[in-house]
Each structure stands twice: as structure tokens, then as C-alpha cells.
């Protein structure tokens, strides 16, 4: 009741005020008939707050998302299941699920009545056009009385998260040189090659045959080592996303960074499907896609990755080098200065393939002609640095489609396009391969 009184709406409070005024007038004039009016409008808010406050329902609310991870533009279904745990039927409940406005308008539902120990489910769908991690909830329940004099809002604390992953475009299956490198036990590309040197050893694992213990190595290392009779070749790729604010242009869903994120996501999904063991390195994050989770962790991170003003290519390089496991390096890079290009050039493993998508973020802006030429020249210079460092570089301008670029990466000789374009420079620089 007290809670209900606190929930009086403006109308309810005005009723009480009017009741007092009319009651005073009735007493002053000695009109019992006016007193009736005063009593009526004075009693109504009290009745209303009693009606609203009396409802000591115990409601349980569970929210489930189907699916919890959805690509941009797809819809996700949110199922709310409300259960009335008390022995009283509920009155009319006004439900509102708090949603970020990027997911559309807040769903509002009127639950007319929930019988005792009855449960009811209601579903609505949300759709996001921007990647991100969205909070769904809390669910706010409003109780109201029939006269609109009193309204109480109660919120369920539970909050769910909907992850909207960046757009993933299917890529054509192409062969990339330097695919099979390194060692490990990725299932897809473990190939036992006959006649390989079997000197390779690894530490003893529980269940290994004792006959396979390589005593010589054991003596040297100081722990049990076994011979590796199979040389697993692993397809391994490290994806690098350039998250420097200075490297990208544009705002919102049409920014060049979004193109970069989408490209990384598409490549990740594509490689993952081809059986690669993936690693994603950004400024702070270093995510390995495990077998159990699939590409989930990478996509989750990509869903909420943001440009960072303090990101530094050097630090990314450090992260990349922290675990030197070789393999393919695919970097989606923003605008680079020539110094940056030198830093990036060192990312390539000695024997590995490095593919660089040089996002030409200046094309996301409309520039006057001289500035455009200047930007093109700068980009060509950085590209050349990379090409010289053994990178395969593909430029990505505004409007380019990733599948086309992907095919281009596989088709051409490393950096062919660039070399052709920069033939003169190449000859002067000399150090090509």
C-alpha cells in the first residue's frame, strides 16, 4: 500500500489534492453532497494504490535468445518466459524490454492476466544493422490500476547479450602458397609423410607407448620425450587487424574500418571452414580460435572491436611475435606511412607468406584532385615497401568487393600488380625477387 502510494501518478496526486480542497469547501459550506465528491475522489487513489500495491506477485522471468550470435542484418528471436510463482493470478502487466535503440523500438507487451502458477511465453524479434554487443533487458514490468491513478514499475535485473557479428561474405576457395607450414596437431592438415625424418620429438603424454620413447632426447631434455612418427603439417593463419584510429576514415557503419572488420571476419570464417587454425591479433587482443568454439571467439571479438586512438603498429607486431608459430599472415591495414610500412614489413615470418589488404581509406572520403593524387602516391609508396619486404599486397578501395580481391591475391604472383605498376621504382630499388 505504501509502495502503491509512492507510485501515484500525477493524476492520482491531483485527485488527492482536489479531494482535500473539495472536502474543505464541503465543510465550509456545510454541503454533505460535496463531501461525497470529496470522499469519492479521495478514496479512488487509495483504492488504486491498494489495488496496485496488493499484488505481491512472485514472477520469474527468463529470457532466451535464438541465436545469441547473429550476423548484421539478420533477425534474432527473443523469447520471454514469464512464470507466476504465487498462488494469485496477476492483474494486467505492462511489459517493456529495454533494448538499445540500434535494435529497434522497445517491445511493449500487455499481459492481460497470468493465472496462478501459470507460465507464458512471448517472443519478439530484433534486428541490428550495426555489429556490436547489445544488452537486452532488463525487463521492466509496470503495474497500473484501472483509473490510471497509480503506476508501479519493477525491473527484473537479468540482462542478456546479443552479439551481432560483422557481415561475412563467402569467399571463393583458392589456394594460397605457404599454406602448409609449421607444426602442431590441427586435424585437418595433419599429413603423415612417408620417409620423413623421424627425429622430431615431443614431450611424453599420458598414453604414449613406452616403446616410442626417444631416450637420447630424454637424456638431453631431462624429461620423457617420444619420437614423433608423424610429421603433422598444419595450416595456420594469423589475422591482423589494424585498429589505429589514424589508419581509418569515415564514421558509423559506412566507415572504412567496418569494411576492414567485415573483411577480417569473412576471411576468418573462410579459413576456418577450410580447416585453418586461426589466430587474431589486434591492438590488445590475441585470440586463438580453439576447436571447441570454432570461430566464435574471433567473431565475438570482431563484433565489438573498436578503433583505438592509442593503438600502435609496433605493439601489434610485438603481440604477433609473442608466439612465433609461423604460417600465413593476413593483415588488413589502414593507411600507413612509410615508417609504418617498415614496421609492418617485419611482421612476415622468415619463410611464411604474408598477405596485406591495404585499405585505401582515403577513398572513403571525397578528396580534391591534388589531394587524391597525393594520397595515391603515398599509398603506392607504402605498398612498395611491403612488396619489397616480400608481402603480397592488395589495395582495397571504397566499393571493392572482398571476394574479387581474394581471388586476386591467389591468382597473381606476389605483389605482381604492384610491381607492374611500380616497374620504374622497382628497377631503381633493385632488391626484388
Amino acid at each position, binding site marked *: 500500500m505504501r509502495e502503491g502510494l509512492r507510485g501515484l501518478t500525477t493524476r492520482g496526486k*491531483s485527485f488527492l489534492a482536489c479531494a482535500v480542497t473539495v472536502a474543505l469547501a464541503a465543510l465550509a459550506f456545510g454541503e*454533505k453532497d460535496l463531501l*461525497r465528491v470529496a470522499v*469519492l475522489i479521495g478514496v*479512488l487513489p487509495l*483504492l488504486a494504490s491498494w*489495488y496496485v500495491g496488493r499484488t505481491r506477485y512472485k514472477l520469474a522471468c527468463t529470457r532466451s535468445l535464438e541465436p545469441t550470435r547473429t550476423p548484421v542484418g539478420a533477425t534474432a528471436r527473443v523469447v520471454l518466459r514469464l512464470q507466476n510463482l504465487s498462488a494469485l493470478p496477476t492483474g494486467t502487466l505492462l511489459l517493456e524490454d529495454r533494448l538499445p535503440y540500434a535494435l529497434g523500438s522497445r517491445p*511493449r*507487451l500487455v499481459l*492481460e492476466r497470468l493465472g496462478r502458477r501459470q507460465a507464458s511465453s512471448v517472443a519478439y524479434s530484433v534486428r541490428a544493422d550495426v555489429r556490436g554487443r547489445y544488452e537486452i533487458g532488463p525487463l521492466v514490468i509496470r503495474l497500473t490500476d484501472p483509473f490510471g491513478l497509480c503506476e508501479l514499475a519493477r525491473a527484473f535485473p537479468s540482462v542478456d547479450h546479443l552479439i551481432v557479428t560483422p557481415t561475412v561474405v563467402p569467399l571463393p576457395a583458392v589456394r594460397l602458397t605457404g599454406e602448409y607450414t609449421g607444426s602442431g596437431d590441427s586435424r585437418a592438415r595433419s599429413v603423415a609423410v612417408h620417409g620423413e625424418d623421424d627425429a622430431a620429438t615431443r614431450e611424453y603424454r599420458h598414453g604414449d607407448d613406452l616403446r616410442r620413447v626417444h631416450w637420447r632426447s630424454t637424456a638431453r631434455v631431462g624429461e620423457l620425450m617420444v619420437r614423433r612418427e608423424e610429421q603433422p603439417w598444419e595450416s595456420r593463419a594469423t589475422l591482423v587487424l589494424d585498429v589505429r584510429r589514424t589508419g581509418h576514415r569515415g564514421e558509423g557503419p559506412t566507415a572504412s574500418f567496418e569494411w576492414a572488420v567485415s573483411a577480417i571476419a569473412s576471411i576468418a570464417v573462410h579459413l576456418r571452414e577450410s580447416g585453418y587454425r586461426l589466430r587474431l591479433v589486434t591492438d590488445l587482443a590475441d585470440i586463438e580460435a580453439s576447436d571447441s568454439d570454432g570461430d566464435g571467439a574471433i567473431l565475438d571479438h570482431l563484433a565489438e572491436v573498436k578503433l583505438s586512438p592509442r593503438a600502435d603498429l609496433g605493439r601489434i607486431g610485438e603481440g604477433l611475435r609473442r608466439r612465433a608459430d609461423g604460417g600465413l599472415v593476413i593483415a588488413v591495414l589502414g593507411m600507413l606511412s612509410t615508417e609504418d610500412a617498415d614496421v609492418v614489413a617485419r611482421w612476415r615470418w622468415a619463410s611464411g607468406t604474408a598477405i596485406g589488404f591495404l585499405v585505401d581509406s582515403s577513398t572513403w572520403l571525397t578528396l580534391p584532385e591534388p589531394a587524391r593524387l597525393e594520397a595515391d602516391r603515398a599509398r603506392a609508396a607504402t605498398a612498395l615497401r611491403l612488396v619489397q619486404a616480400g608481402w603480397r599486397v592488395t589495395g582495397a578501395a571504397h566499393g571493392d568487393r572482398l571476394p574479387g580481391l581474394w581471388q586476386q591475391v591467389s591468382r597473381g604472383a606476389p605483389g605482381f600488380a604492384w610491381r607492374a605498376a611500380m616497374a620504374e621504382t622497382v628497377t631503381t630499388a633493385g632488391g626484388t625477387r
Partner: protein
Amino acid sequence: MNQRRSVALAAGTATLLAATPLSTVFATYSWAIYCAFVIGAVTGAGIAARALRARLWAQLLAMLGALVVMVTWLAHAPHAFLGTIPTRATLQSFADLMSSATADIEKSGLPVPDTPGLLFLTSLGIGLVAVLVDVCAVGLRRPAIAGFPMLAIYAVPVFVHVDSVSPIPFIIGALGFLWLLVTDSVDRVRRFGRRFTGDGRGVDVWEPSPLSAAGRRLAFFGVAVAVALPLFLPGMTSGVLSRLNGYGPGNGPGNGNRPGPAVNLFATLAGQLNNGKSFEMLKVSTNDPNPYYLRFAVADELTASGFRNNAPGSGQAVTAKGIPDPQINHKGVSQHEYHANVTITDFDMGRAPYYLPVYQRLAGTQRLDGSWLYDYLGDQVYSNRSSTKGKAYSFDYLSTTYTKAALRAADLIDPQSSIREYARVPTQEPAQVDKLVNQLIQGKTTEYDKVEAILAYFSTDNHFQYSVTTKAGTSGSDLVDFLTNKQGYCQQYAVAMAWMVRAAHYPARVAFGFTRGSSRQGQTYSLTNQDLHAWTEVYFGGIGWVPFDATPPRSGSVKTDWAPDANNPTASSGDDNGGSTQTPGGVDASGEVGNAPHDPRDFGSGGGSVVTTDSGSTAWRWWLLGAVLALLIAFAVPGVRRGLLRRHRLAGRSRGPSPDVTVEAPGQMQVVTEPAAIGEAHAAWDELVDTLVDYDVPVSDAHTPRVVARRVIKELDLFGEPADGLRLLGRAEEQARYARVPEVSGDLGAGLRSVRRAVAATRPRRARLRAIVLPPSVLRRWRYRIGTGGAGLINRVGQVRDTVVAALSPRRLLARRGTR
């Protein structure tokens, strides 16, 4: 748009309902039809304007236009184009109507007739209210504000009537307003979002909301509280304002609507007596052979300018025990109960309060509704609402006579008593009066002797004469003038005597009424305006107000034993002496000092034997008692039925329900069952199951007796005697069902009792009470029987119908022909 339409309709209907308080102002109901037309036009215009997506101001214009057209049409205003579009001349006629309405208001008392002017005013006002309500509720979406225009309608009867208005119009109006609120609120909730029910079903727009059902319940409760609560507040007859500075119904400036001041009765009296034309005011017939004056009002406030009558304010409805006990328990006071019928032909105060003439010591009234109030201070019957015009009513009264001895032996009046108020004289009392009174009462000891001396002063010996005209004096005081000129009519005599009695420090007041008149046919007196009269009433302790008439005798006046003609003090004169004889063994045989029931001090204390013959008031009590009894019996039936069933089963167990039946197999084997034991076990088991059902212990039909016993023991944690009893009952039933020869060993009755006690102990008190008063087993069985009986009835009706249809169907003949 569609949604707001329901709110608009609700607003219109609510306005119509809110107009119901006008029914207490109007004599007829034609106003309601006018209002319905006007509100319908306004609401329709509003809906149409919204359908055309007009802006708010356009909606307002549309509604006002519809209002004007409808009012013009209803008023049959002349010169209107097509009878509906007002022209300049029409507006002129509207102005005339308005002024005629104002005149009507000033002229006519309540309830007002349906003159064209008033109807025009009403329909215009209600129409404007409808427009406001519609704009507030629909246009501005603030239906709560719409309450103010509705309150304005309600205020009209509230302020027009001095006393309380009947709560029924208020209830109707309030429900209308609440309905509007609920409609708007439910509409708001519907707009909030998609509606669905607990079972996951979506709810369509048209489906009713449970919220509105809750709204109905709350509204009814709130209105009931609003009507009931003010009833419990005592007083409230006059406002704080009137108490503080004397402003109130008594002497406020009259403005036509508000019947503030009472009619100056002295002026009325003088006016009617001086009216050259004599006309009949009322007819009264009574079985009293010697009735006293027919009295209707009293003037009890004495100011320097004379006596004044105030509007009575202490009334209680005559129908609701407003009339105090008329009996006087005092030695020497004798009372006779008589009955009188009054038909008023032309007696009307013109404005409230309307006084009703009755004989004194009123005991009860008939054919008067609750609007008539009894003012116990002034002993007058009045109403602020109902007019006396054409009224016919009857009443019982106790004609009272007093002996001089009784009056002499009257109690002293307590100086602290409120009745002393009536002995107050103005501070600037003329000195001559004081001197005269002191001179008159010199040497007299009792109150009666003093009053008699004052009465005797108004004799012809002292040169007092009756004259309808008075001579003007120079003293500046009407009283002194009269005492000097000694010429006047009843008014002067009554006032002078009352004043002089007050100067002698005894309570006195002036009463108004009719003499017996001069025209009499049998027991029926026809009283005219010339028979209006005023006389003095003096208060005697323990007896009450006793009338004294100081006016020289005229046609129709009555002289009594205790107030003899001043000219002939010894003779008990009067037209008819019969009724004034004493009745020695009368009401007062006790001789003890009685109380005066009309004394305000004792009002409400009741006591004494009541002479009321009010059988109607006791009858409803019997009805209520009967109803309560019937309700109790109805409630007791299931419990009693259960008890009888239990006794029957337990008795059957001991008696053996059926004769022994010996089944002889044709072969060598002879199997003798013991049906008595079987019946016993079955009865005990049935009783057990019913007991469990009563106490809400789940029992499944699918379980064997043993399982049932085991489960109940486990569920209720029984042990010891009840558990053994339960097991015994289970075994007995099991054997009765399945064994060839049941071997029952043990007292099933005792087992049942212990189980019952044990089960009851595990249940909360409510369940126990329910098991006794409304046992679920009995109710369930009845419900089942009603259900199957209903289904059977329907089946039978269906069969009968089918056969009848088949018998009557012409197709039958055709079919036969076909087969032929």
C-alpha cells in the same frame, strides 16, 4: 482513431449520466430527452470531426456548431433557417428564453416545471459541458479534467437544495465519470503494446480487458464508500462559515437559486390576514372532537426589533425516526391519540423551507417521504425540497391537556439548560416592559402563576382590543407601541406575551398556525387565509412547550383550561369543551416526575413507552431476521447433510444394512458370505474417503485401499492409533472387496474417529472449518449430480424434440411414399 471513438462514446454517455442530478431539480423528465439529443449531437460531431482528422480547434468548432444547431432545433426557435440554423432574430429569441428562464428560476420553487426557458438553459448548459468533456477526454486525453464540468452539473442541485440531495443521482453520475476514466485507462493500456493472455494467446482489440473488470469492482466500492462515509459524519447541517460569522441559510441574501432566508412568517401572516380576498388554504379532518390549533412554524429568536423565525436546521426525516417521543409523563398531563388528514389546497411558503401544518405532539406521519424533516427544536415539520403545494398527508398526534396544578407543579428549569436560550431578551429591552412585567408578577411564586398573570393582562378590562390594523406609535418599539395603544391582532398579542414571559425570565416563543376556522363540516375543517393565527408557547420544566393564546377570542379560537380567556379567567370557555376534560387514569398514573420528551436535552435518549404505531418499521426487521435465518440455514445444509450421512454410515455399520443372503452353490460347496461385514467395511471406507476429501487430502480412485492407507499415513506422518485405524480400514475394505470371506477384526468406528481427528489436526483452521461447514465431499457430489442431471435433462429434451420433430416432419410422409 478507432480507439478514441470508444472514449468519445464513453465521454458522451458519462456526460449524460452526470446530468442525472438535475432530476432532483426538475419536476418532469423532459430535460433528460433534451440532454440526450444535445449530447448525442455533440458527441457525433466530435467523432465525425476526428474521423476527418480535424485539428483540435476544428473539432471544438464542429461540436459547438452541432450544439447550436441542436439547441435551435429543440427550442423551436422562430426565424431559424431550416429550423436549425439560427439567424439574428433567433438569437433575439434565445435572449428572451434566457430572461424567461431567469424569471422562472426566481418565480418557481423546487422542483421547477419544464418551461421552455429552463429547458433551453439546461440543454445549452449540458451541451457546453458535453463539449468540454469531449475536448478534455478525447482531444486533450485528460479525462480526469473532464470531472470538473461534470462536477459543475452536480453543483447545481447541491447548491439549489438546502438539505442533502438523494445519493442516487450522485451514484449514477460518479459511475459515469469513473467509467470514462476506466475506458481511457484501458485504452491507454491497449495502446501500450501487443496484448496477450497468460495462456499465450494474443488478445484482439475488441476483447474486454480484465482491467476494466477490476475497474468496475473498484468503482462500485469507491462509490459505496463515498455514499456511506458522509452518512456517518454527524452534524454537517450547517457549514463552518455559517457558524463563524452567521452567514448561512438563515439570513443570507436570497438570490433566487438559493433559498437562504426563511419566509418572514410575520409578514406572511400580516399579508394574509389583511388580504381582502378569503380563500381556502387547506382542509383538515380529525377524529379529535376538540382539536387545538393546527400549527406549522415557530419564531423563537428575539431581537430588539421583535421575534424572528429562522430556517430550521436540526431536522431529521420524519420517516427515519425523526419524530421524538410525543408522550409526556407528568402528573396532570393527559394525552389522547387522534388521527388527522390534511389536504392542502393553496398553502405554500413560496420558497424553502416549506412548513407542513400539523397538530401538536406529533406521533407519526403517513404519506410523507424522507424529504420531510422534523425539527425537534421548534417542533415543526418542514422540507427544503418538497413543496407543500397540493400535498395530502395524514398523521397521528397526541392531543395534550394540562391541569393548572400540573403546570404549577412543573419542575424548575435548570439554569444551565440550553432551553434558557429561549428566555433571553435583547439587552436594550424597553424599560416600560420590564416595569410592567415586574408589576404583574409581583407576589406570584410559580412559573404558571406568573404566566397566567401576564396572560390575564391582555383582557378587555385593560382596554385591549382586536384589530387587524395597528396604530402607529412614537416609542420606536413596536412592542411598546402595542402595549400603549392596546390594539392589534394575534401577532401583536403573541409577540407581546412571549416577550413579557421572557422578561419574566421564562422561555417563550411564538407559534404560527391556523385556528379552527369558521367553516366546519362534521370533523372536517376548511381553513382559509383568514384563519392564520399566532400564539405564544411557554416552556415548563418537565412538561415542555405549553400553548397560551393571549388574543381576544374570535371565531375559531380555542380557550383551554390552563390558558383561559383573559376576559373570563374562571370559565373554561371554548367552542367545544369535550376534549379538554381530564382523563384521570390517563397516561400519567405513575406520579413520578417525568421528563419532557420534547426537551432538546433529552432528545435521542428515547426511553419511556412509545405510543408509535409504526408497524412498518418493525416489519422490515422481521424480514431481515428471516433473511438472515434463511441464509444461515442455507449455509448449514451441506454440513448437516454431511453429519447425517456420517451418522447413517456408522449406524449402518452397527445395524447391518442388508439381510443375510446365503448363496448356495448347486454343488457340494456352500459359500456363506457375510454381507453385513462387507456393507460395514464399504460404509466405513466410503466415510473415510469422504473424510479425506473433506480435509483436502488427495485420494485417487485408481489406488487400492491398501495403497490409499499407506500413502495417507506417509503423507500426513500418522503414527499410533490413527495409523493403525487407517490400516485396519484399508484391510477391511480390501477384504470386503476381494476376499471370499472377509475377516474383519477391530472396531472400524473407533478407527474412523481417530483417523478423522488425526487428519483434522494436520490441517489449518480454515480447512477444518470448511470441512465442517461446507464439506467438499458433499458439495462435489451435488455438483456432480447437478451436472449429470443437467446433462440428462438436456439429453431428454433433445430426444423429445427429435421425436416431436420426426413425428411432425412432413418428410416422414414423403419418405413413406417413396418407399411405397
